């Protein structure tokens, strides 16, 4: 799944419907979707890299570079983001879940 691509000196990002939109139309909501996709992706995500002169639109370049850098980092470190050990109430949660499961077993037996 390619989240960011470069074509005709323009940067594009992937929309939910599978189509691409130029990067200057990117909003914070769309950024959040890309962030989610990078972190939750089941398959590998891909990005076109900025080459010497493949993205000449200056405004596109600024946006593309920032977003690309961040999404790559997130995808590479997505396991760290999923670590639940620091979560609040983790111990209670696990204990209560176990109690609820025991109760169900008790009901059926």
């Amino acid at each position, binding site marked *: 799944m390619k989240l960011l691509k470069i074509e005709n000196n323009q940067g594009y990002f992937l929309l939910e419907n599978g189509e691409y939109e130029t*990067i*200057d*139309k*990117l*909003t*914070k909501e769309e*950024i*959040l979707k890309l*962030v*989610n996709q990078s*972190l939750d992706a089941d398959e590998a995500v891909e990005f076109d890299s900025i080459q010497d002169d493949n993205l000449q*639109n*200056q*405004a596109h370049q*600024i*946006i593309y570079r*920032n*977003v690309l850098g*961040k999404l790559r980092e*997130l995808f590479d470190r997505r396991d760290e*983001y999923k670590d*639940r050990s620091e*979560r*609040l*109430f983790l111990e*209670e*949660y696990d204990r*209560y*879940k176990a*109690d*609820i499961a025991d*109760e169900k077993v008790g009901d059926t037996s």
Partner: protein
Amino acid sequence: MYVTQTRSKSDRNLHMKKLDFHMHTVATASDSDFSFSMEKLIEYVNSTELDAIAITNHNMFDSGQYAEIVSELAIDVFPGIEVDVDSCHILVIADPCRLPSFISAAEKVTNEIPDENSCISILRFQEIFGDLDDYLVIPHYLKKPEIKEATLGAISFAVTCGEVNSPKKFVRCIKDESQLVPVLFSDSRISSNLHVFSTRHTYIDCGEISLNAIKACLNDRSKVALSKEDGNNLFQVLSSGLKISTGLNVVIGARSSGKSHTLDLINKEQRRIKYIRQFSLVQTDEEKYRKEFESEVDGQQNRCVDDHLSGLRSIISEVVDIDLVSLENGVESYVDTLIRSAEEADRNDSFSRASLFSESEFSLGDDNSLTALISSTRQLIESIDFRSIIDKHVDQVDLKKLACELIDVLWENTEQRSRRAIANGLVVNVKRELAVRSSAIQISDVDFYEVALAHKKVERFCEVVKNVRSKCKIKETDVQGYKVIVRKEPFEGAQQLRALSQRNVAFSNAMSVYDKPFDYLLELKKIDGLRDADFYRYFVRIIYSVENSDGFPVSGGERSEFRLLQNISDAQNYDILLIDEPESSFDNLFLKGNVNALIRDIANIMPVVVVTHNSTVGATIGADYLLLASKEKADDNFEYKIYSGHPTDKILKCEDLSETESYVALMDSLEAGHETYEIRRAGYEVIKN
């Protein structure tokens, strides 16, 4: 018939025997280490003129040492043991004629109580000793560890007397028929380090010394006493032999005659002493008095104020970091850039046309209320105290499901917030870079919700402060006839604030905006050395006052009296009360009217020793016993002597049998001599006429 019933006092004195039936000669596991000294025991018995003793070591009887002691001493020595029974101590004293059976019982005790943490049950105690009537059985009674009622009940048939640890408790038991007959013993460790011999002994009116005769005496409270000649009116208080009354003692004497020294000696030799020293009741420093009042006299007051101001405290912590000025600036800058960007719309370029150029950030918010809700649910699940009530109304499993679902939401929110923060970071960076390249005006970001919330918080804070500052009474407590009142009112000047801070810093700027609570808070923040956590104390003035029964503020004298009352009520937890020169703290009218009565009252329940050279105290307090301290020349040196007697005795006597006239002593100590007294009296007569 009348004659046979009434024995003369001297007759009775001949029969009075002095006993110490509780002493230790072996360092057992229950004692701190010491080594027994036979010389010391002989010295102790001789100097204290004991007529009989019992050897009572913890849970053991050393028959070899006992035989040695018997052969060394000229008085009767009884074999005994102090047994740990049901977490209390019971003395068992045997008839020397029944030594073999006592030794075998003591051996069983030793085997069954090998260390200081063990004890035997009262049933086992009875099994081991068999017929308790063969022994003299004395439990710790008004002495720690005290015997429990159930334990005493089980052996009450064999117990007639109980051990107490002070003359005060002895007298209390003697007066109260429902209590056991009291005995007071030294409980000394007889070691070479024993320098001050105990004065705790019991006299019994007993013709011959035998276990049965002693047991008979200890069954009759009229036959036990604290002193040889004076029944329970006097007791020995110093190892030098000095006796004082179990009621009110007055010590008089010239300056530097050893009055305070006598109190110091009593304080050193006796235990559980309440000592009210000279001038200690006077308090002239208002500020010190106030502080002492807050901290000591009623330590709960501070807590009361903290409770009262806790709401203010928490709202201060909510608003203390609000920066209204920078929030205003943010709004201004937003409006300004918005207008300019509209005006210069034609200047848009590829940078400013990008959506992110004018994008705002996600508002992140927090989950404080959700976290609190989870904590409350958790409390419902984990509560032990109210388990049955909670279970009656809500199913545990449902509560756990609720908690898990709420936690799921919390985690999801946390996750979302962290992802929004990432997006925000990107937005900020891209916006900054685009702005650098663009010639268009970028509209600055502002979180209107945050601005509105901050204003609302400040508004609310000002309302709360206004209410807190209203003048009113917070708390009123009755303490021994006085009212302790805590009030609050607005501060009136910067000086009051500075006094409260105890720092040399200026509060004048703050005080000038005292009417605008939020500005006032900002000014407080500028003052060096004031902690944020203490700001709440500077919003309203808390005033402590003590009023007398008429509702007026107390005078200096009443304040001292209040302190005396506090001290005296505390004295009831001690065994002897010593007061050094109460006249140093009170004027004569107070002494006569209030203080004397107070001291008299407490002397009804415990021995009190008052040192004075004030005639109002010395002559009118109604002493039970008079002590005259005197510094006298002996050979080349001076020696301190104490003459004593009842207030009506014409002669006061010293332990060394020397005597002095009571009248002269009183005149010299309280009235500056007979001559001055006569002149003064004549002077009063003239005015009166």
